[in-house]
Every structure is written in C-alpha cells, then in structure tokens.
C-alpha cells in the first residue's frame, strides 16, 4: 500500500468511527429529550404532534429527518422553563438571546453547554499563539449574549483573565436602520477607544476575540496612531461570522499583521456558530489554499450539513452549493435540523475532522438582501 492509500484507508476508518459515534450519541440524546422523566416540557409536548415515536424510531442520525425542521421562532417568548430538560432541573440556568432589536428576542436556555463548547474549542487553539495563562480582550457583543461569557470562560479555562468592553448590537442595528451613520461611527469609535485603553494599560493581553469589523477598526485605529497590530503584543485572535471571507483574511494577514503566523507571530482563526449550536472550527487557513475557510462542527454535539436548497433532507455532493443545516445534540438542547440563514459549499472530511464540513459560508442568497450581517 502506498502512503496515500494508507492515509485514505485510515481516514475512511476514522470516518466510520465518527459516524458510529454520531449515531450512538443521537440515540442517547433523543432518548433523553423525549423520555418523560428527563425531557423538556417543550419536546414532550411536541412529541404528541409527531407521527412517529422518537424513543423507538430514532436509531441513527439519519432518522432525525423524521422530525420537522426546527423553527427558531419557537424560541421567541416564554416561558423559558419549557425548554429546560427535567433531568437538569435545579441546576443554575442561563438564558442567552439573539435578535431583539425590535420585538421579542429568541431565547435559548443554557446550563453548561457554552463552557463545554468553548473548552472543546480551546483544544484546537495552538498554545504557541494562544499562550496558556495569558490574558484576553473580548471585543464583541456583550449583554444577554452567549459570546461574552463564553469567551471569558475560554480565557479562564486557559488560565487567563478576560478584559471586556460593552457593545450593544441591538443599538447598532437600530442605528443602521435609522440611517444614523454618524452615530454608528461614533459608537464604533467608542468601543475601539475602550479597547485601545485596555490594551495600553499594561495588562499583558496576548489573545483576543474580535468581530471582523471591530478587528479591522482596531487595526486602523492603531495605524492612525502610528502603531501596528503587532505593537499590542496580541499573538492569537479568534473571530467569526460570514464577513470572515478569504479575501478579508488575506487582507488582515498581509496588511495588518505583517504576514502569515510564521513571519508575524500573529495567528487568527475563524469560527462559525451561533446560540443554537456550539462552535464550528476551521481547517487551518493558508495562503497556499487561497485562504479558503472550511468549517467543521464539533461532532457529535453538533452537526453542520449542506443541503439542497429545495429539499433540506437531501445533502449535496462535495463541492456543491447548498443551504447550511444545523443539528444540535446536547443534553441541554435538541435541535433536529435547523436551516441557517447561510449557504456554502460542502467540504470533504480530513484527518483532523473526519466528517463533512462547509466552506465559503455567506448569507443565503434568498435572504441576502434582507439580512443585516456583520453589524458590529
């Protein structure tokens, strides 16, 4: 056998193992959410509407197609307790919100999922650029969102202390809708000023989370002061969102950071996720691959599939374009297939993540004109 064919055989074996793990995990999670003693009031009530019995008819991941698509509108309004599995009653519970610029936001209850997700993500961060014990700056949305607490936990899990700024994305969306662009600019400046102050205060910050827009603004603000991003001492950045495109990544690496990690010492990793699922990590992004960004969900806790635009039960072939479909399978939260507001291309498994991923993530073309993305 050649080295290549051995590698291919190994990958295939690992794929099969991953698939077996996912199937077993699916059954376990479905049993939990639909068993009268452990399930949440929401899913137990929903069970009555189903034309199958999840407890007996879900034997593998593919059986989740029997469920209707998850509608995130179900998350709007209360009572929030209906989402808490009875098996987790009494545990300290958070609520994380999305949307809510106008009207009632969508709410997701969380107990430990955000910690578990970010601890798993922590394993993917290279210690060389995200040194253990170093302090972090969280330059992103705060308030009733998962991100602030999650990043803070990531930092603490790695032994550091996290500095945060206040950022209210609902106000940002409102400013854009009102066309108050001067106010928007001032608010962004207000956030960046806080970040610059923290960075100048001698806290030995080496890692950060930033949204692409705020990272770019921070780099610009530093350059306007005659400094560069490298002067901050930050060597590890984690960011995310559909604006995190190959071109934007290349622009940052080439023009703000001073080159790839081997030259500049600065490493940036994209991520893809939301309040419904965990955090999908990226295959390492390199110039050799034109900064292509491919995300792989943290299976078996969450799965991302790329499905046919017209038939969400059908996965597209590798390289083909489709809608991103998320599935969340944790003891806290069960999402049996949710059509994201994004589209992308299906990616093949590889040694690090022996399951399918998604690349080229961008707003779903059917929604693109109505969606305000990357507002902060």
């Amino acid at each position, binding site marked *: 056998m050649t080295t290549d064919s051995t590698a291919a055989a190994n990958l295939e074996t690992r794929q099969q193992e991953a698939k077996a793990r996912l199937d077993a995990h699916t059954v376990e999670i479905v049993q939990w959410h639909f068993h009268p003693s452990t399930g949440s009031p929401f899913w137990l009530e929903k069970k009555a509407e189903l034309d199958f019995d999840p407890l007996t008819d879900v034997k593998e991941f593919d059986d989740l197609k029997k469920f209707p698509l998850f509608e995130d509108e179900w998350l709007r309004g209360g009572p929030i307790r209906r989402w808490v599995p009875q098996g987790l009653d009494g545990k300290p519970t958070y609520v994380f919100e999305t949307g809510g610029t106008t009207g009632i936001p969508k709410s997701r209850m969380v107990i430990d999922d955000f910690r578990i997700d970010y601890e798993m993500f922590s394993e993917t961060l290279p210690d060389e650029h995200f040194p253990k014990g170093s302090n972090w700056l969280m330059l992103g949305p705060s308030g009733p969102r998962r991100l602030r607490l999650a990043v803070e936990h990531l930092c603490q899990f790695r032994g550091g202390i996290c500095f945060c700024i206040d950022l209210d994305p609902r106000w940002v969306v409102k400013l854009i809708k009102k*066309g108050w662009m001067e106010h928007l600019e001032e608010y962004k400046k207000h956030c960046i000023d806080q970040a610059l102050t923290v960075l100048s205060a001698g806290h030995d910050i080496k890692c950060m989370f930033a949204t692409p827009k705020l990272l770019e603004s921070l780099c610009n603000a530093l350059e306007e002061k005659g400094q560069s991003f490298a002067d901050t001492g930050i060597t590890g950045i984690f960011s995310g969102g559909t604006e995190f495109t190959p071109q934007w990544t*290349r622009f940052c690496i080439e023009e703000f950071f001073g080159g790839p990690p081997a030259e500049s010492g600065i490493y940036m990793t994209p991520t893809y996720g939301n309040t419904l699922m965990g955090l999908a990590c990226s295959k390492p992004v390199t110039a050799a691959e034109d900064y292509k960004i491919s995300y792989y969900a943290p299976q078996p806790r969450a799965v991302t599939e790329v499905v046919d635009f017209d038939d969400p039960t059908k996965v597209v072939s590798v390289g083909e374009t489709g809608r991103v479909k998320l599935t969340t399978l944790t003891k806290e939260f069960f999402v049996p297939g949710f059509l994201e507001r994004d589209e992308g291309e299906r990616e093949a498994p590889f040694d690090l993540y022996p399951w399918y991923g998604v690349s080229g993530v961008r707003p779903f073309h059917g929604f693109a004109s109505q969606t305000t993305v990357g507002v902060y």
Partner: protein
Amino acid sequence: MLEIPVIRWGKPYQSLEVTDVQHFATGEPVAKVHQANGGIIKRDMRQAQKARDALLEFSCEELIERLGKAGDHYETGTLAIGDGTQTPAEFAHQQSSTTGLPEHMCRANMGKNSFVLKNMGKILDCLTRGLPLDVLSRGWGIEDRGVVVSYQCQSPVLGAVLPSNSPGVHTLWLPAIPLQLGLVLKPGPQEPWTPYRMMAAFIEAGIPPEAFCMYPGEAEPGAALLESCERAMIFGGTPTVERYHGNPKVQAHGPGFSKILLADDVVDDWEQYVDLMAESIYINSGRGCINCSGVWASRHTKEIAAALAERIGPIEAKPPTDPEAGLAAFTVPGMAAAVWGMIESDLQEDGVTHLTEQHGDRLVEQERCAYLRPMIVHCESPDNEIAKKEYMFPFSTVVECPEDQMLARIGPTLVGTVITKNESLIRAATNATHIDRLNIGAIPTTKLNWLQPHEGSIIDFLFRSRAYQVPDEMLPAS
C-alpha cells in the same frame, strides 16, 4: 474575456473575490472583475495625499493639456485594460452588453466624455470664473484685480460611487485630475468599462498612475469609500440623496425630475416645441437625470400629450446592436415589471390618462431582461401622484397647471426649461431655488452647456474660499 483587477494607487491588485460581469441578454460572462473589500479602501486612503502630491508635480495647465490627449486616446485608442486590450468598438460593445444601453448610445457617450476632456481648459475657466489655476495649486494667490484670494483644497482625492445604468454621469468627475486631486472610484457593478478605460487613457497621456484607485464591488466598498474620502460623489435614488443630505463630504446625485414649462405666452404655439419636448424625454433612452419627466402647461395639455404619445409611443425595443435601437434594457431581474406595477397603480387615479396605451404593451419581457417602451401620461392636476414620478426609461407626464401656480407646484427640478418671454416669470424662475439648471427659452433639458456647473459647482465642492492675509512684502510689486 478581460480580467479586471482592483487598482490601488495605480497598482493592480488581484482579489480573492472575483465576479463575472454578464451579458444582459445571454448571461455569458463578459469580464471577470476583482472585488475590493472595504478595509483595503480605508487603509489606502491614509495614503491619499500622495496622489495629490504626484499631481502637484505638474501644473494645472500641463494636466489640462494631457487631458486633451487622453480624450483622443479614450475615443480612438487601443488601450490596456486589465489583462488585455480594448479598442473603441470593443468598449462600446462591452459596455452595451452589460448595461443594456444600445451600442450607438455607448459610442455617443464616448464622444461626450472625449469632448469634455478636450475642452477641460475652457470648462475650468468657466467653473472658476477665470481664477488663475495656480491659486488652487498653492492654496492662495492674487487675482488680476490685485486682490489676495485663497481656495483651500478640502481633500487630496475625489471619490465617486458610480452607477451601472447611466454612462453619461462620468463627465462629472473628470475635472478632478486637472484640479490636482486623485481619483478614487467604485465603478457600477455592470459598468466597469468607463472608469477603467478613462484611467487607461489618462495614464497613456502621461498622468501619473498613482493618482488612481479603482475599487469594484457591491455595497461594502461603496460605504467604505464614502466614509474614508473627504469629498465624494454618489449616484442613486431619492433615499440615497436624503441619506446624505447635509453631509458636506458627500455630493449625492439622485433623480432629476427635470421639466419643461410652457408659459401662457407660448403655449398656443405648442406644436413648435414637440420636437424639443420629445428629444428631452426620449434621448439616451430617457435614463438621465436631465431627461424631462414632466411637461407643464396651463392649457392644450391633452393635445400636447397626444402629440408626444404619437411621436414616441410607437418606439419598439430593438437589439442593442441595432443602430436604430432607442431603448435600453432593464438588466436587473424583475425591475421593469416592478416599475410597471408602480405605474399601473398610479394610472388608476382619477384625472390620469395613459396616452401611449394605443401603441401596444409598454412592458416587454424577454428571457433575461425587459424593456419599458416610452410612456406619456396626462395629468389633469399637479395633485396626481404620477405627476411627481420619474423613471429610468422615456417617461413623462403632461401636467395641466395654471401658470401662476407652476413654480410653486413643480417641486425639486434639476433642469428646468422655461419657455417664455414673460419677464416676470423669467424673474420668478431665476429666483426659484428648487430649480438647479435653468434654461430660458426653447432649449432641450438634455442639452448641456459644459461651461456651466452641474448640480453645484465642483470647484465649490472641492475647494473652500476663505480669508488669507499676507504681509505686503509677500505681494508682488505693482
């Protein structure tokens, strides 16, 4: 097929985001255009002063002379565009194929741009009212009458977010280079042709390449350009104009709502002006802000509308290569049908009559594009909703309105042609601040005198007149 890069201060930049610009009728890719991200623009603009410094190496007069040569290159030369070359015929063909404008109109617009380039000296002399141009270079100087004057440049570059559907607007940014300001352009997504060809002609004529940036893309680079240039133009609809109203950094060019007013002293001879009215409505496929969208008179309005409908109603949609083609295609899917829907709704109102109906369907839908054939609509009153509308095809209302109410009722008007010899009406029109360009007499709204400012003088936009006092020893001996 040409591959067109982003240009950053004269240097090509290959983006990782490349889009196909497609032929509007066949969907075939005509060019690959590299897309700029907003961050690039904001970062590049920190170097904007270098563009002005490069141009300040030349006098305004030298630059004007080179612009004359650029006019020749633009109109007749084979120029380097992206990874290939482009002849004038290829330019007209490519521009037509992506914008839907008939080829002969594309060629006519080339002539218009070339004319402006070749006459830039005279144009600037008029726009500056004879100011020695070195005053603009130095920031101050002494006029012939011995008075110290100062004009302070407000930005090292002029930015422009350009449209896809109206190649005529490009004359507005051409004066930047001889005024020694760099050019930072975001071409319209379907119309990269004019900005890139113009830049190639400038460079061929000896203008320093580092004076130019080209940032193709969608909304994000447009917003970044407007945010990071101290002076910029944008072309759009009424919401765009309202959004930037009062922003001294942005000159927003929107709909023109240009009109022809036939006063009571001439209206009985209306037949003499049918050619002028038809030309004002129809020329260049009615796409320009200077095309007439309203004819106002106190009487004979039904006859005027009928005569105009007879004249332009039969015009058919023809292929863009047809030398007789008079209509531009709507290339954005669904747009023509949406416009037609709005018009149909307005036609339901009492007092509104569609005069071109008898010449066949106005909406002509084809496989990948659509046309709207010319429309003339009679309004019994200025209160009719459709009397306030303007569309991107040959469309005009004919509005019945007493002469003494006309100026008060016409609303914002980019070009107002007031046909009269009535001195008091002329005086009132002259004083009407809602009319931008005023033509007194039988002048089509579309006939521009390039020696006149358009929608505000570009000199006033780019330079600020201010006090400047110097000791006597700095003044030349008299």
